[in-house]
């Protein structure tokens, strides 16, 4: 009989009205990197929350065995004691504290049980930092580190608690390419030291690269577990969505119209230091019906560029912006909207949505002036137009009065999209339009982009996913270090050329 470090047997978990997990069995061999794939809502997070004790024993049915022993956790601490650590997409480090304080939070080494032994704390921290390949002082404040390094701190914290099974939920969502490489080499290293890893990701390229085994969930059911060598990316996708996606990127060819937006000699300076330029020598244009992709590594200034053009960035800027042949001044998002720009920001929860308000209020937020007579909102028009966009974008929501918080990520993203389409933009800027949403919803968003393209809307798409950039853009700009370092038509571009330009090469 095969040996498993972790066995979850016949797990069923019900939420009011929904069966989140239906008789799922999940087995992990010791020392492997086991990828868990599935669309949003497939039940990955629920399964992991059961494993890590967020949902205590009794709230689900089924059994969990670790090294053959039946487990029953009442809380997270008990699962930690059993050697399970989870590192969530949203990091839980405390930025104001030092690395050492973070790693030993709640576990501080003490003298006489009260006084913290700082010497021991920091010397042990040093050892753990070495383990994850970080060369920084243990007394550095975590807030000073990049996101990638903060994630390493979380891993180090997990290891310090003697974690044997490490769960990583979308660990690379906010990492640069090089940070991803570092993460992977650390995971390999941990694997060699006998740590088992459960790896949840939407990025199948990474799954193919790092994982040994993959388990696919769909609609709360376990579809299959396969060695990674016996499968392909497309096969995994079709098992996740339960259908063959003939094309992941439904590009359509379409002739472009006039130049609609022109940016000339654009510069912008950091808000906190007006001497330090964050964008320099930016020149580009975009035409009606064109999708302009902006690629680049994290920190290259892509989000800053679109945010600054949209008037949403503090700090001074200079240069010319011409829309529809007329030079315009944009000093606030209000100006930008008036001039026909829309910006779908990168982090929808932070910058895009009011989670505690309903779908209707979120959809109409940028378009209120057009729904008002004498400053008073016409509620009937509001419901009507909201319903129109819910239908148009196929937003899955019970009513337009449902709180956005209750929708899935993909549907939330569609609400943001709907909000901006309602303003009838000439230029739609999308910053990471498909981050953190499942394959099916991605495909729908691509189709909407195509439809807009046919209607003559110019789209600027910032994306960290190269396949998306290559698959959807008509033309691609590559940014490096605050400036544009390469421009390609889509048929002459490939991953290597873009990466070269993104890393500063010519």
């Amino acid at each position, binding site marked *: 009989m095969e040996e498993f470090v972790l066995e979850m047997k016949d797990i069923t978990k019900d939420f009011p009205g929904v069966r989140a997990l239906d008789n799922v069995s999940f087995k992990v061999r010791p020392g492997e990197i086991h990828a868990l794939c599935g669309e949003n809502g497939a039940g990955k997070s629920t399964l992991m929350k059961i494993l890590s004790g967020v949902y205590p024993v009794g709230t689900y049915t089924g059994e969990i065995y670790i090294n053959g022993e039946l487990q029953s956790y009442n809380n997270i601490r008990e699962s930690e004691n059993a050697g399970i650590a989870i590192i969530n997409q949203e990091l839980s480090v405390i930025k104001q504290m030092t690395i050492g304080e973070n790693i030993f939070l709640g576990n501080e080494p003490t003298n006489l049980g009260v006084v913290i032994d700082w010497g021991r704390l920091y010397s042990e921290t040093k050892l753990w930092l070495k383990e994850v390949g970080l060369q920084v002082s243990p007394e550095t404040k975590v807030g000073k580190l990049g996101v990638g390094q903060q994630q390493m701190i979380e891993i180090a914290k997990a290891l310090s608690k003697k974690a044997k099974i490490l769960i990583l939920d979308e660990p690379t969502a906010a990492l640069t390419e090089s940070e991803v490489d570092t993460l992977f080499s650390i995971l390999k290293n941990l694997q060699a030291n006998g740590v088992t890893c459960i790896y949840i990701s939407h990025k199948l390229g990474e799954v193919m690269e790092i994982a040994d085994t993959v388990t696919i969930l769909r609609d709360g059911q376990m579809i299959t577990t396969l060695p990674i060598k016996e499968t392909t990316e497309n096969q995994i996708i079709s098992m996740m969505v339960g259908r063959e996606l003939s094309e992941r990127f439904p590009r359509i060819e379409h002739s472009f119209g006039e130049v609609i937006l022109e940016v000339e000699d654009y510069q912008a300076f950091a808000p906190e230091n007006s001497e330090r330029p964050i964008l320099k020598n930016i020149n580009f244009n975009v035409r009606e019906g064109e999708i302009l992709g902006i690629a680049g590594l994290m920190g290259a200034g892509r989000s800053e560029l679109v945010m600054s053009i*949209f008037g*949403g960035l503090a700090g001074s800027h200079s240069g010319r912006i011409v829309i529809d042949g007329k030079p315009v001044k944009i000093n*606030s*998002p*209000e100006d*930008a*909207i*008036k001039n026909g720009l829309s*910006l779908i*920001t990168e982090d929808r929860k*932070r*910058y*895009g*949505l*009011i*989670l*505690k*308000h309903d779908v209707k*209020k979120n959809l109409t*937020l*940028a378009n*209120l*002036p057009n729904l*008002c007579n004498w*400053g*008073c*909102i016409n*509620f*009937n028009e509001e*419901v*009507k137009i909201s*319903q*129109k966009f*819910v*239908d*148009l974008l196929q937003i899955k929501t019970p*009513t337009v009065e449902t709180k956005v918080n209750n929708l899935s990520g993909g549907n939330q993203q569609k609400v943001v999209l709907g*909000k901006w*389409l309602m303003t*009838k933009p000439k230029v739609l800027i999308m910053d990471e339009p498909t981050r953190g949403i499942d394959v099916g919803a991605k495909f729908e968003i691509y189709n909407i982009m195509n439809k*807009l393209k046919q*209607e003559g809307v110019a789209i600027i798409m910032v994306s960290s996913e190269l396949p998306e950039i290559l698959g959807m853009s008509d033309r691609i700009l590559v940014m490096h270090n605050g400036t544009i370092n390469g421009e390609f038509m889509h048929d002459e571009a490939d991953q290597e050329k873009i990466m070269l330009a993104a890393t500063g090469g010519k």
Partner: protein
Amino acid sequence: MNKIETPVIQREENFWRRLSFKIDIRAYTMVFALIGIWIIFTIFTGGKFLTPRNLSNLSRQMSITAVLAIGMVMVIVATHIDLSVGSVLGLTGGLAAILQVWYRVPTVWAILAALALGTILGIWHGYWVAYHNVPAFIVTLSGLMAYRGMLLGAAKGLTIAPMEPDFKIISSGYLNGIPGIVLTVVVIGAIIIGRFRSRATKIKYGFEVRSFTLELLITLFYCGLIALATYVLYQYEGIPYPVILVLFLTAVFSFITNNTKFGRQVYAMGGNVEAARLSGINVRRRTVMIFLLSGLLASIAGVITTARLNAATITAGQGAELDAVASCVIGGTSLLGGIGSIPGAILGALVMASLDNGMSMMNTEAFWQQIIKGFVLLFAVWVDFKTKKK
């Protein structure tokens, strides 16, 4: 994007679910709590609590906190706080009294001066919060201290009295006889016309509406309540002026917060200020406006206070800011912003005033009153939190 067929809105819930969907359950817990409090006091005072005379007093007592709470709701919804309203109340009420008693300024001008001062102080707060990013807590705490000092200085530590009869009447007057009945009838008529016109428009849009009978019953229920309240107040002297003022302000500001672009944008800012800003909302200007309104309302409360006491005292409005915050919170306003309603805050003010009034009638000692009010606040928020989670 314009070629879409007419949307179909389908809701297949049954009658009761639809009804409960329309009812804000949390608001109604507070209504039940209020009824409970009233029943308890009625029992303990041998029925004296529910006499027309006492209910009339109660409604006048709540008016000052209620006016402050109206402004506070908007401030809290926008994630800020206004701790200065008690001192603004004192200072503006003091200004009105000083102008009238010492300089013989007619009532109208004294009141306008007080309101102007309240507005200016509100703009001052808003300016620091919006344009210099100083936390509202600090800006208005500074106001709380400073304006009390200004009042002390301006009034030379004295109680300034007496006011002219036409000033006093703002708090002590009653609308009775034919005019009061006309007002009640007009309000009831407006409610009936408003509700059925809104229903007709909804039908025109093809939206689902309540059945005619249900709509009629609900409308009759509200109108009946208003008629009953008028009847009870008429059993004593009539409708107190400050009550009319509070109801008027409640109606106006409920409309502003619910139905106007400004109101919606304030809620959006409170829900997520970054998302609001990036949706083209001028967050700074709205912030100044919110504090302006709060200052203005505090000065209205100041005028009522001076009228009620027939004097300006140097302690007028001390601690009133906390009563206002408590009313908002009891009425369901979230300190995290983005959620809250003005009728809720009025209900909260009524709860607080009922506790004060009832316990005074029972001759509860002052210290007990404070202790009990403190724990009621805690309990109310806990209940609110519990019911919200479900």
